[in-house]
């Protein structure tokens, strides 16, 4: 046995590897614990079931250190949120403070997303920040749910909370809470969710304080510096391996909820050595409707796409962001100026991600999926019960993903930018006078490809209340999710409302009154395909046919696969002949 000796495991920077790993793991754990606390104590369906909320931790300089397993579309705005907090409060951070805002032109999300930021102190010194954001089921304004499809100015969208103190050195700002209570339709749910966010910030404070106490401030600072550098190093190494050049792509949002005209996002991704620049300045000017996307949200969308292409191994922190810059000319609809309406900006944020995916597919084709249903379609139902109680229910329709360079899309998984849950059918019915009559995959709807896109899904709701208001935002009614490498595009969306004997096909975004027995039938887009469908493995086509996801006719007409009606197996010879003919 070799002689033992006292030793320390040191890396180049002087901090031992073990301490580094412990602090790194603890930071993600704290962010996840904040999220758990928020989800378990929140009140609204959107927080507790749909998980439309997020949490993160930043260092004393406001640099993001860790984020929870939550929504990339939220968390990508955290750098912008922290900049706004520093601009507003400068060096006035005090223990027990909690800052609050939902201002699209300050923290940069949309009004239903209320952000809380708590400075964390350890031994009386500023040590970092806890961030918690939740999409609230109502923020007042012209429509329940805070996402009026027909809004044209920020003032109509709801109560705008500038960046102010919700807690001032531990004392709650009762005046503000009363203002919020009196402006929203469901004050218990909104304030309940807010208190869930407060609880999450509290957990962040307590756990980070303990972590720094255990390791000492100097070691903690060394570890976080190293953690950010590590992410930057990995990010730059990955980008350096991609071919240099400028890659442009254009995609559209169908309409702005006011006018039926498509709005274009034009992006150019420039890979330059180990850094990456994305510019959206050629995009269309800001619009009257509510799909304008504040620049911090545009950043979040672009960043999410880059992170997906980089892969999950690189820690999502401010170090990673250093290698990536995102710009857009103010006044475009991806960098709107006051008083633009922005409450439906999440859709645009997702389309920004699509544009970045489309551009990167030219540079690194083996790492980019075909276009997905990139954003869920959120609907807000509102009614008043016979007993006079106000009910607001938010539901998300989630549909198909795009095919990948090496595999089929997984069916019905939440979008990359917006990792939400669906609402349970039974819990929806127990909570709101609705009956869901259908929630399933639609056969033959996939974007065909060597690796196919996910099938579209449909949800069908029957109204049981005497009267209810419905606000719905969807997209891809006219444009379609694109395929890649010869893959076909996915199908488009369609929404129908049946009122009495009349069936109406709705525009993508609408707000309307619904009455008892009226029906909403929502069919959302499917995912695009990757690669030529004629190159698809016939065995995979057969599996889809047996599972009744694809009909025999479609197997033959689109994939060139002939399935014997007698044996339910692939007719190899007929398939080869048909495919040869179709390839000609």
């Amino acid at each position, binding site marked *: 046995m070799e002689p*033992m*000796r006292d030793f320390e495991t040191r890396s180049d920077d002087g901090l031992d590897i073990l301490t580094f790993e412990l602090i790194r793991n603890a930071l993600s754990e704290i962010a996840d614990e904040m999220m758990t606390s928020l989800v378990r104590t929140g009140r609204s369906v959107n927080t507790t079931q749909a998980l439309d909320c997020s949490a993160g931790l930043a260092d004393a300089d406001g640099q993001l250190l860790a984020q929870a397993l939550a929504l990339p579309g939220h968390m990508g705005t955290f750098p912008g949120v922290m900049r706004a907090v520093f601009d507003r409060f400068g060096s006035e951070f005090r223990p027990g403070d909690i800052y609050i805002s939902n201002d699209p032109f300050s923290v940069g999300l949309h009004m239903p997303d209320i952000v809380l930021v708590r400075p964390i102190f350890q031994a009386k010194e500023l040590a970092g920040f806890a961030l918690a954001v939740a999409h609230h089921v109502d923020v007042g304004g012209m429509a329940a749910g805070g996402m009026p499809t027909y809004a044209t100015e920020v003032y109509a969208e709801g109560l705008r909370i500038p960046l102010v103190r919700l807690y001032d050195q531990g004392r709650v700002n009762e005046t503000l809470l009363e203002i919020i209570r009196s402006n929203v339709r469901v004050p218990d749910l909104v304030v309940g969710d807010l208190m869930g966010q407060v609880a999450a910030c*509290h957990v962040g404070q307590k756990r980070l304080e303990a972590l720094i106490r255990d390791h000492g401030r100097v070691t903690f600072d060394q570890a976080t510096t190293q953690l950010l550098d590590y992410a930057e190093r990995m990010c730059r190494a990955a980008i350096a391996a991609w071919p240099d050049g400028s890659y442009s792509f254009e995609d559209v949002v169908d309409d702005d909820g006011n006018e039926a005209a498509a709005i274009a996002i034009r992006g150019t991704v420039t890979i330059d050595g180990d850094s990456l620049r994305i510019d959206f300045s050629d995009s269309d000017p800001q619009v009257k409707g509510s799909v304008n996307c504040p620049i911090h949200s545009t950043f979040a969308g672009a960043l999410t796409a880059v992170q*997906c292409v980089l892969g*999950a191994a690189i820690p999502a922190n401010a170090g990673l962001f250093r290698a990536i810059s995102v710009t857009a000319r103010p006044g475009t609809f991806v960098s709107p100026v006051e008083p633009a309406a922005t409450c439906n900006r999440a859709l645009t944020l997702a389309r920004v991600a699509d544009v970045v995916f489309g551009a990167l597919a030219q540079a690194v084709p083996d790492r980019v999926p075909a276009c997905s249903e990139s954003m869920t379609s959120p609907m807000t139902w509102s009614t008043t019960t016979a007993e006079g109680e106000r009910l607001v229910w938010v539901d998300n329709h989630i549909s198909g993903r795009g095919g990948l360079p090496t595999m089929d899309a997984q069916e*019905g998984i939440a979008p990359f930018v917006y990792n939400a849950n669906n609402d349970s059918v039974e819990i929806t019915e127990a909570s709101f006078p609705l009956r869901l009559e259908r*929630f*399933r995959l639609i056969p033959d709807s996939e974007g065909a490809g060597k690796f196919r896109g996910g099938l579209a899904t449909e949800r069908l709701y029957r109204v049981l209340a005497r009267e209810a208001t419905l606000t719905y935002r969807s997209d891809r009614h006219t444009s379609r999710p694109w395929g890649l490498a010869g893959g076909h595009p996915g199908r488009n969306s369609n929404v129908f409302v049946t009122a009495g004997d009349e069936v109406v096909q709705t525009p993508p975004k609408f707000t309307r009154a619904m009455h008892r027995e009226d029906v909403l039938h929502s069919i959302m887009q499917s995912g695009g395909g990757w690669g030529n469908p004629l190159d698809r493995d016939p065995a995979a086509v057969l599996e889809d046919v047996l599972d*009744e996801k694809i009909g025999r006719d479609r197997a033959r007409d689109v994939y060139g696969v002939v399935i014997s009606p007698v044996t339910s197996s692939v007719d190899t010879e007929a398939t080869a002949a048909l495919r040869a003919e179709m390839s000609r």
Partner: protein
Amino acid sequence: MTTSGVFLGVDTGGTFTDIVGLDAAGRIIVRKADNREANAAASIADGIRALLDEQGIAPSSVSRLVHCTTILGNSVFERKGPVCGLITTAGFRDVLELGRQHNPVLYDIFWKKTPPLVPRRRIVEVEERMASDGSVVRPIDPDSLDAAIDALAAQGVEAVAVCLINACTNATHEQTIAERLRERLPGATISLSSEISPEWGEYERTSTTVTDAFLKPTFARYLSSLEDRLQTRDLVPELLVMQSAGSITDVEEAKAMPVRCLDSGPAAGVIAAANIGAALGFPDVLTLEIGGTTAKSALIEGGEPRRSMETEIGTPTGSDGRALRGGGFVLRMPVIDAAEVGAGGGSIASVDAGGSLSVGPQGAGAFPGPASYGRGGARPTVTDANLVLGYLSETQALGGTIRLDRSLAEAAIRRHVAEPLGIDVLDAAHAIRSLANAIMGRAVRTVSTERGRDVRKFALLAAGGGGPGHAAEIARVLGVDTVIIPPFAGLFASLGLLLSPSERRASRAVNLRLRQSGVAAELAALLDALALDATGKAAFEGTPTITEEVDVRYAGQFHQITVPLPRRDGAVDTAAIREAFEMEHERTYGYRSPREHCEIAAVRVVARYPRVVTSPNFQRSEGGKTAHPPRRIYFGPRLGPQSARVLSREDLGEKPVQGPIVIPEYDTTVIVPPDFTVRRNAANVLILERVKTEP
């Protein structure tokens, strides 16, 4: 104490069957049997006979056998099971495949779902509909039912799950379908969601019911063959089976609801911990059971393990060792609330391209196993690090059979960790062990800190082959001062089998506002009906203790808290329900909200029959006092390398002895670091206490 006859606890794992017996004099006897035979039932019967013969006990004197097995978990994991079908409400064919639609991991575009146990082609819809309040919106259309059954029959379905929308509030449609299935598909087993998991949430209930259907034929066959095998070896005990909730049930119910037995191994260990902890004067205990590739922890308060109404199996583990919830199959059923992380003795250590070290979740398994096993494993594991650091020794055989080779462990650590990081082998081994400790500690934190509990008020009870060797260091990091190591720590789950109460449960989903008028009367009537369900069937010995509980939440919340339901002179006290709920809410989440409505989501009755075994005698001979040379162990940068005494349990008494000490045993190795003392109490339990010294 004495018992009428011999009681056996039999825990069948992947490679070993652990048998723990309690003889008529209250003495504990143990044997680890190799699962060499393909037929698990045969291995068990033979192992029991070998133990009895060794001890000179007549087979006929075995009166009770409590069993838990990994066979159920393995069949899900390996997807070996019957051809399953699912019948559901028209419009909802894809509930199972779509799930909750959440990604368990961000930025990983290549992530794949675990495919459902029933493919779409064998999911059929029936025209029918229940409303949320249990009223019938649309009666069953008999033609669509027959067509659905025919479609399943044509595909050779052997096991059918039935899960209809809102069946949790009215089971009659599911029952009608069951009747028709018995007529038209007589050979198939049937699992009804309204019986398996009568609670809200169509996806969770479907997932649970489908898993039950998948297990049913296999488990029924297995239990029958076990009974037969035992009989041919002259063993005719009452056969009982452990459930995931930590209670035991009879063969009939186990065959009817196998899903409730799915995760019973860890539950058994927790039950043992609860009983032993309470008997020792440690009613508040955190358990830490470390096995080959995982570490599990559970919270026990006042001698009662915390239970949960939902769990997930087949969950992949993330790069940081955390379970990726949403990646496996959700099961809504009572379970012991345990947290699991992907780090155990066999977990592999590796270094990524960015120079970051990780441990697990990949494990080396029994074959090839850690590098030091010399079975061809090249990747370094936690066990290899322990060997290099001196915590384990080449001279002590693991489980009595496996010899370790230090040079192989060193070579693997050098190549895969030390060289990529540019550090030497000892540094690397220490980093591996410490990182593993941090990950294992996370399981403890999940069931304590994350539930609002202060870990410092608990003792850490270490079990499993690896627990006693890591527990003290993990306790130190968590801020826990006391570690208890029971006898038979490595065979702990089997011991739990002997100590579990028999139990029956009945539950019902509801949606009631606590302040609504008439709620108290409605609850009372519901509970009385459920109590009949729970005690009506063939009962166990003795008079059951009836516990009534309700799941409560603030209006709008999705997560519920289960609270016991107090009755005053037979009447339900709704104010007391509210108080109990708000107290627990405040404890777990830090606040209460008096102005909001409370809702009841489920009511439940648990009939618990008296424990047959209460306090066994834990004395055990480990071969007496023997002199071993001291071992050099590296205890980390602060404590440094030190010479540790090698002792046996018998060497210790009530007087605390200062570490460093190593206590090698048949089924585990106990490590007492330099900053801990160890003593042995009258019940043969080792108690390690941290010495608070000024540096």
